[in-house]
């Protein structure tokens, strides 16, 4: 009797606490096919099929509290996705997990203070081409030119005071960028090494936490920010071990970064700049400055953005690295997007290395077929020399078709 009364009381309390809460959700099911006209040295496959189901629920518990989550379930034909029935939270494995908790965070705010803890997306920087200051934004680079962001696990505290915002971030564990798979077309292994036999020896992850601070000011008509980061690079360096076969292991060098960004609208276009100095106490890691200068303009149904992504090496230590961010530097980059009508759009983007040894161009057409359904077709053309980051992928030009059902 007492138990049933207690249960009733709990139910009444739970019902009361749920009052005023609001649940919202969105998501999509996407089927995607990529078609490669050419085979690559490590990959004879010409077609890759993928299916991804993403569900993003959120629950507003009270005016101050909100829970956010996102779940992914995926599969593919090319073993980029694991064939293991387990849910992944850490995003540290070589392949994409078949089931993953993409985001899981609790957000609390009161007055000028916002605190978000858990697995979350943190995006810093103002440029669109390349974001040197975006340090808590690892990516999935299994297909290098079609990368997607990964969330990091940690706490973010944001204080907003008038036009100024202070962002403090701590992530106890590094979430690495997912590097291309050794046995697939986005890793080019020299013929001599390939003859010896190469195997992936996994990753060596650092144990220490990452810290970051960003101060941003939205002034009258322009904005700027300064960034400090202390932790590890989410892109790996690679060390080799010679035995019966060559064993390649990824590791993440220490990184201390000083950077900033600014956006200034002028009469003709919005000018954006972003720069960061990457320093490291690791003797195998380069120290360098990455910077971006771009102009952006909207004209009728067109959006244009173009600029230059530059790099200056301050201390060269010649590591073997998968440095996708530096790979798109020393390049002129441009994007033009045209909205044909509310249902259809077209975009072209390109990166051309300043020495002309690598180019990447993508054209994309997108068509909303119904209120929920969108089809997208794109073609990526990659050209260049084998010693260039972009040029090495010259056999990876590909077409892609995606059909997405949004709900």
């Amino acid at each position, binding site marked *: 009797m007492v138990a049933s009364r207690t249960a009733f009381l709990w139910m009444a309390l739970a019902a009361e606490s749920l009052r005023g809460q609001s649940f919202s959700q969105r998501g999509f099911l996407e089927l995607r096919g990529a078609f490669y006209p050419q085979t690559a040295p490590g990959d004879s496959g010409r077609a890759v099929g993928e299916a991804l189901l993403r569900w993003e629920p959120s629950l507003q518990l009270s005016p101050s509290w909100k829970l956010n989550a996102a779940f992914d379930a995926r599969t593919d034909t090319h073993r980029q996705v694991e064939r293991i029935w387990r849910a992944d939270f850490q995003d540290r494995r070589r392949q994409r997990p078949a089931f993953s908790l993409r985001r899981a965070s609790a957000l609390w705010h009161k007055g000028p203070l916002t605190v978000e803890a858990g697995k979350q997306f943190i995006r810093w920087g103002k440029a669109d081409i390349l974001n040197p200051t975006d340090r808590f934004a690892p990516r999935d680079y299994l297909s290098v030119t079609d990368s997607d962001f990964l969330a990091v696990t940690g706490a973010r505290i944001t204080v907003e005071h008038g036009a100024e915002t202070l962002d403090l971030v701590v992530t106890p564990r590094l979430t690495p960028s997912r590097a291309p798979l050794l046995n697939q077309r986005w890793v080019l292994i020299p013929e001599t090494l390939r003859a010896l036999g190469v195997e992936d020896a996994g990753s060596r992850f650092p144990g220490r936490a990452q810290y970051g601070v960003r101060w941003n000011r939205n002034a009258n008509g322009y904005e700027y920010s300064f960034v400090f980061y202390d932790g590890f690079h989410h892109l790996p360096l690679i060390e080799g071990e010679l035995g019966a076969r060559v064993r390649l292991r990824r590791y993440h060098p220490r990184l201390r970064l000083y950077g900033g960004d600014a956006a200034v609208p002028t009469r003709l276009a919005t000018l954006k700049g972003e720069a960061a100095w990457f320093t490291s106490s690791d003797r195998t890691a380069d120290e360098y400055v990455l910077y971006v200068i771009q102009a*952006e303009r909207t004209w009728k149904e067109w959006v244009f953005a173009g600029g230059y992504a530059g790099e200056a090496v301050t201390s060269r230590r010649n590591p073997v690295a998968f440095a996708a961010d530096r790979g798109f530097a020393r390049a002129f980059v441009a994007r033009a997007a045209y909205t044909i009508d509310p249902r259809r759009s077209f975009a072209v983007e390109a990166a051309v290395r300043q020495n002309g040894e690598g180019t990447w161009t993508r054209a994309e057409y997108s068509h909303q077929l119904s209120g929920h359904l969108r089809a997208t077709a794109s073609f990526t053309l990659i050209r260049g020399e084998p010693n260039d980051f972009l040029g090495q992928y010259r056999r990876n030009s590909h077409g892609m078709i995606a059909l997405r059902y949004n709900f």
Partner: protein
Amino acid sequence: MNKQLAAVVLFAAAALAQDPRQIVEEVQKRTRSQSQRYEGTLRVIDGRNRISEKRWRYERLGSFGDSKAVLRFTAPAEVKGVALLIHNHKERSSDQWMWTPALQRDRRIALQDRSTRFFGTDFSFEDLEERDASQYSFKLLGEETVNGAACWKIESRPVSTKTSQYTHSTLWIRKDIYVYVRIEGFKGSSLVRRIEYSGHEKVKNIWTARLLTVFDAGRNSRTELKLDRLEYDVTDLKQEDFTLQALRRG
């Protein structure tokens, strides 16, 4: 004596009412509220009569000259969560930022980009900011009847501190209840956009158009915005709900 006084008051009111600035300021005065919230249903009808629907939720805090607003798409699923933050100012054009949840990034909408259509609707970014009387000069063009209602026809031109895609606009204001029934925005002599206000209802003592129809002359397309669940002087809105962090919180 009383009759004479009434005649003088009526004459004075009529004389004042012929001052176009005072007419527009009276419109502002009569629509002034501390805050506003509505759920908007949009039907975008393109030149070939193809229709797409969207919904947004609009919240405003403050009134003319010093208001802040957030507009957040709630449907369709593809654009759900996309939001626009507007900080209106008395002495200059508004500041606007757009939040795109798929990118987890906010982007300031530069002044020179305000003539762009807002997310596939026929509203431009500029049309979504408030039209404070202090930012325009006015000229009374005459009187006209629109949909059976007697209206003042007034020309407005932006002052030098106001950046606008329109060189001038023509406003039609109903004489009986001081509300806009039509605004046409021009670039030189070419019509750029026409906004029709209809279905006026009194909500919390404020005459409000429940249906806005925006016609984009360049594209020959129109967007109908229907205002549902309209509230004024909402008590649960706070300043902290109108910041970039609030956009991110969703």
